């Protein structure tokens, strides 16, 4: 069960997501991300209370981040640094030193993920 809640904080659109962000809820997350990135000047995705993620979550957030960068908008993610989530992202192979293209070069969301072997 995932819950996506949207609010405004100092002009930033804050998407607070909780529960399990897996393929089951990927459509809902995409819709919320798309709306936020298209409409707000800055987007913050708060995953502090997320208990589970899968690859669909990671690729959605990546895509949203690229779109935000192309539109010259800022997108950040909070709560991702917690060990449980960062280890999962590391397992998916999402650790990075730099971003994947020119627009996200310096702001890659996965820079803090842990490499796991």
């Amino acid at each position, binding site marked *: 069960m995932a819950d996506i809640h949207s609010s405004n904080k100092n002009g930033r659109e804050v998407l607070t997501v909780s529960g399990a962000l897996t393929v089951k809820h990927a459509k809902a997350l*995409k819709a919320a991300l798309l709306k936020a990135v298209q409409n707000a000047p800055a987007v913050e995705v708060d995953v502090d209370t997320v208990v589970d993620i899968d690859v*669909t979550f990671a*690729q959605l957030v990546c895509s949203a981040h690229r779109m935000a960068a192309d539109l010259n908008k800022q997108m950040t993610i909070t709560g991702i640094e917690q060990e449980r989530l960062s280890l*999962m992202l590391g397992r*998916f*192979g999402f650790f990075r*030193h*730099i971003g994947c293209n020119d627009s996200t070069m310096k702001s890659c969301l996965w820079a803090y993920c842990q490499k796991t072997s």
Partner: protein
Amino acid sequence: MNDENETFDLDVLREMFRSEAYDLLSELESALLALEASPGDKEIISRVFRALHTIKGSGGACGFEAIAHFAHEVESVYDAIRNDKMAVTREIINLTLAARDQIAALFDEAYKKMPAESEVTQQIIDRFKSVLPEGVAPKVKKPAEAVSAAEEPQETYRIRFRPARNIFLTGTDPQLLLDELRTFGTCRVVAQLDDIPSLEKLDPELCYIYWDVILTTSRGLNAIKDVFIFVQDTCELSIEPIDIEGVLSEEHGYKKLGEILVERGDLSPVDIQEIMSKQKRIGEILVENGLVNNDRVEAALTEQQHVRDLRKNRQKSEEITSIRVQSEKLDKLVDLVGELVTVQARLTQVATEGTSALLMSISEEVERLTAELRDNTMSIRMLPIGTIFNTFKRVVRDVSQNLGKSVDLVLRCADTELDKSVIEKLHDPLVHIIRNCIDHGIEMPDERVARNKPRKGTILLSSAQTGSQVHIRIEDDGAGMDLDAIRRKAVEKGMIPKDAEPSERELIALVMLPGFSTASKVTDVSGRGVGMDVVKQAIEALRGTIEITSRRGEGTAITMTLPLTLAIIDGFLTRIGDDHFVFPLSLVDECVELNAAQSEKMGDRDLLNVRGEIVPYIKLRHRFGIQGERPAIEQVVIAKVNDFRVGFVVDHVVGGHQTVIKNLGKMYKGVDGVSGATILGNGSVALILDVPKLIQTVEREESWS
């Protein structure tokens, strides 16, 4: 091969595994204690897993099936932990330590024929099963599989896995396939993100990601293919070996980034040539030129790092080569070197007494070689004292937990080396002292806070070497000794008269007398009135000394001074009549002459004035009942024990002597003041004096008289 030979081979294998088994248990224990302090540390979890895995694999290979299966059960729990399926808790640590002890008991049963309680194994397994979260099915291999896998060479593969876009809709999670690969060995995974479309076009239920995996495993190509068996018709999969242990690993480094990209087909050789002419970092240049994206570079760098690390580690393990030798063989070697030193002394004596220059020259050469052989042999037996220091961490943990106290053990200078036999005999006395420190010394946490001390007590265990002696110091920051209580107890027990005014040092020394304890209650840990006297005896049996200093409210420090070795020591040879006696040279402070007039001057009390200092002395001729005429001028060898100088009167001083220590045998076990014997160059026997014991005996006799 017939049955008899198979049994023989297994016995040989078991014996070879013996010391490794105990090393593995020691590593397991220290890893568990480290894990308790940092429960989330992946590297330490891997250490625990590796130790259990090797016990399982090697134990199984040696025919210790019960041990292998037990280790397998425990390993399963750590497999779940390293895969983030459960967390490390205090209970898990306690259970694993109990499991470690049970494995040790099972090894003891096999090697030392000491019975182990077999039902404990099942009890521990049941308790482990009760803490495993529901649905956690460990994926580690059974012992027999583990053994065969361990024998195969490690290969490294480059895998690119591009699943079908609709993989999620078929109910398959690609992550589970990657997780399964991770159980095969060392694995690095890099997700490739360049196919992810813009958000508007992205169908969130499709998979746009593909993966580059570098895997080092001994499982073989077919096992890797089997992982993808259910998706192989719909996915793009390439698996290439890039490093094979012993075949493709001649170089210790690994390919350059450009070479990897060309090999992967991500870049053409022409492009790399052109780019190489520019003097920038290859990865930057390639990305700037749009030839590859950052993800490809990241994957190639990961591969490069993985194989370089692998080869570096392989090279490192090849460099540190050593062989395991049974300690009995080493003891025999030391005995033989001892004999050789004795024979060499005889040869030197004969050569010195004779007139042959050739014999003299040969004798000198033999003397030089013998000394070198002796030093080298003795150095083989030397072990860093840290080998026992580390085992005390467990003692501190268990005892402090038992007493509800919080105590840190700090080890310092654990690399000081001591003879193996001394180290073995030090274990029990040190355990006793540490238990005492926690029980009597360190206060309860609340009490410490009330006294403005850190809540956690500290025991500092350190060692240092000076000359041929090693000093071991155990220091705590606890309550210190209550000298008034010691005094009251001593009076109560009749150890000192009511009106006696003993010095602080004398009071503390009472603690080491048999039957002395000030503890108001007897605990499982200490306070039964046996212990410090036994500790003192054990240290003295090692020809060492023990000294205690204490400051009320601040703590207690116990210093042990021990000889580096028990096999050959630097001695100081003396003679009384026709008999020879050896003093340990480390205790000898100086020699002075004693003429008849001087000794008479002091009357009945055997005291000597040495440059204004009054030094008590013991007449060894009288002590050992040696008949015959005393020389007009006798010699006094002044020894220093715990900063206390005592003289020993002998007829003549011969000088320094390499002393090979021989036991006196059971018949002379009870003889006070003599700790062993040695054979001199002329074949006669000299007694080695136990100086501290001699002083104690005389002190006791004087106090009785």
